[in-house]
């Protein structure tokens, strides 16, 4: 009974969320089965390329939901969320590297190829334990969460807000990118981690493994959405929005604003890390380029395009923009960045609420036009009368 009321409360006025979850459910059922069981020459066949591409989009969508939680609801514009995504990705990448074992080019059962190449004799301490899947997954959650906690604790305690905070998050991801580019860091330098063979003993190139990874991504997105939705419909969520709208007021009615921001920020970083961990086995590589500030900025564009503070809007934006990116970079590669820039300008100027807000915007505009027309005809009549 209590559970039912919670569920009812969560989905009250959440048509978009229902559509998102319904779509995910349909994707989980149809895409893998059309990939695995439909004959290759049938028009219903979904190629493995498409399946993996969709899986990638779902990871991006989860990342966008994570950012929407801190930006759309708490008003913290993080321009460094790609860092948490990449750290999660590295966690998974390290596990996959250890799984290669002696199948690498140098055939060293213990050390990944790049370490042999660098003449390292033994595994660095921070690579210990990553041969165990559970440990790697624990790190995927712990490392982004810990970094977000330390960063957030320092920043929020000092009341750094607005554009200053955004710049600091940007610097954070940039610093990490430079650090990971160095070979001495022990994460494969600018080549990153790649040449993965299998995950939990299953061949990463096999269609069935790809299908399972796709399903896992869809489930992770559904889980991330439900968790975020549960939070934003709780009293905690109302406090978080209150902080966004009137931080001082929230503080003076007795909330310790720093703790709330920190909590949401850490949770969002963890979700981003999970998205990164699911992304890496599907694309087959993780390198320092994932820390690039540009990635984090693109992520902000996804959320803005989809519609802030809706969660499902962020997921929609991520998929829509990335579909555009896949299309444009294939057809007109040199135009993609211009298109992205133009998109951001158009959205900020004309569609402040993104795609999701568009319907409401059109409805309002229509009502306004209708009102104008009515008024116009009224005055016309009175003009005739006099």
């Amino acid at each position: 009974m209590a559970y039912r009321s919670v569920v009812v409360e969560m989905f009250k006025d959440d048509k978009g969320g229902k559509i998102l979850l319904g779509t995910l459910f349909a994707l989980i059922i149809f895409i893998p089965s059309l990939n695995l069981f439909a004959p290759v020459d049938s028009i219903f066949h979904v190629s493995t390329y498409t399946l993996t591409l969709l899986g990638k989009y779902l990871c991006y969508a989860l990342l966008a939901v994570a950012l929407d939680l801190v930006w759309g609801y708490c008003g913290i514009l993080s321009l460094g969320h790609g860092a948490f995504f990449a750290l999660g990705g590295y966690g998974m990448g390290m596990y996959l590297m250890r799984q290669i074992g002696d199948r690498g080019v140098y055939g060293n059962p213990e050390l990944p190829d790049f370490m042999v190449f660098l003449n390292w004799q033994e595994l660095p301490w921070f690579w210990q334990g990553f041969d165990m899947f559970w440990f790697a997954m624990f790190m995927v959650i712990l490392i982004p969460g810990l970094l977000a906690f330390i960063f957030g604790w320092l920043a929020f305690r000092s009341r750094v807000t607005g554009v200053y905070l955004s710049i600091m998050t940007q610097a954070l991801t940039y610093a990490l990118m430079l650090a990971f580019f160095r070979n001495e860091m022990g994460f494969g330098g600018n080549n990153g981690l790649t040449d993965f063979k299998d995950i939990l003993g299953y061949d990463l190139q096999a269609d069935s493994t790809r299908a399972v990874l796709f399903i896992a991504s869809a489930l992770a997105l559904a889980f991330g959405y439900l968790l975020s939705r549960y939070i934003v419909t709780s009293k905690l969520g109302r406090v978080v929005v209150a902080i966004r709208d009137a931080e001082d007021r929230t503080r003076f009615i007795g909330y310790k604003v720093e703790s709330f921001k920190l909590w949401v920020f850490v949770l969002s970083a963890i979700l981003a890390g999970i998205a990164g961990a699911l992304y890496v086995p599907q694309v087959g590589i993780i390198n320092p380029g994932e820390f690039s500030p540009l990635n984090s900025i693109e992520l902000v564009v996804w959320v803005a395009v989809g519609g802030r503070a809706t969660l499902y809007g962020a997921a929609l934006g991520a998929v829509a923009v990335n579909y555009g990116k896949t299309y444009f970079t294939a057809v007109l590669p040199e135009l993609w960045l211009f298109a992205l820039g133009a998109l951001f300008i158009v959205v900020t100027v004309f569609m402040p609420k993104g795609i999701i807000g568009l319907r409401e915007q059109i409805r309002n505009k229509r009502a306004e036009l209708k009102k104008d027309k009515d008024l116009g005809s009224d005055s016309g009549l009175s003009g005739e009368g006099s």
Partner: protein
Amino acid sequence: MAAIDKFREAIGRDRVFDFVQEKRMPFMNGRHAVVPGELDISHGTILYVEDITVSFDGFKALNDLTLYINDGELRCIIGPNGAGKTTMMDVITGKTRPDSGVAYFGQTMDLTSMSEYEIAHAGIGRKFQKPTIFPFHTIFENLELAMAADKRVWPTFIAKIDPSQYERIDEVLEIIGLKDHRSTMAGQLSHGQKQWLEIGMLLMQNPRLLLVDEPVAGMTHQEMDKTAELLKRLAGDHSVVVVEHDMDFVRSIAETVTVLHEGSVLAEGSMDEVQNDPRVIEVYLGE
């Protein structure tokens, strides 16, 4: 030798050990017990502000300000622009730390060492000069958020409203006259209604002391009368400090008026006394 002494001390029957002894508080002095974290107004004064000085880049916003507010009192504070009224509120609510001086809430709580949220929990509510409410929450939610409760992260996450809290919110909605707007987004309220909502939010905190900064700015005469009535009703159960520019309004509610000028108290007394004080006339009308 030393060991034997220690042994004697341990088994000696002539002394009472600390843990058996009744806890003695530093402020006790045989009169009444002081419980940490609880407001002590046994002396009838709820707020002590003594010799507070605050300077910004050499400019003294407050200059040896000394002020006492009695429990249940309705006090108006007036003064020309830059007299330090808002800075005084900032000091009391923990937003600004004074360079020197002390501020005590009751006998025991040192406001200069507490943070904003601790001061709010201790029982001081503050209304800002510009009405500050949560525009994307309904009126009901605004009041719910302000309601006295455990406001740490986890308890807030699992909080559910119980029937007595519903009643309390209804009660406050009645007091501030917004009962029919319970589900309206707060951002859609008129300016005056926002001011009332903010006062309502203060009431939800069950504060002992209300600091109200310019409650009637931008209000119509009718709204002003209603606000005056509201504040008068609140005094008694609460101590209310009102900072206001509008002299008519101050006259309609004031018992005691304090005039601030250049960061310190210029005059204090009833409205008539203050108005006839030559120093006050000079400050307001110019030399």
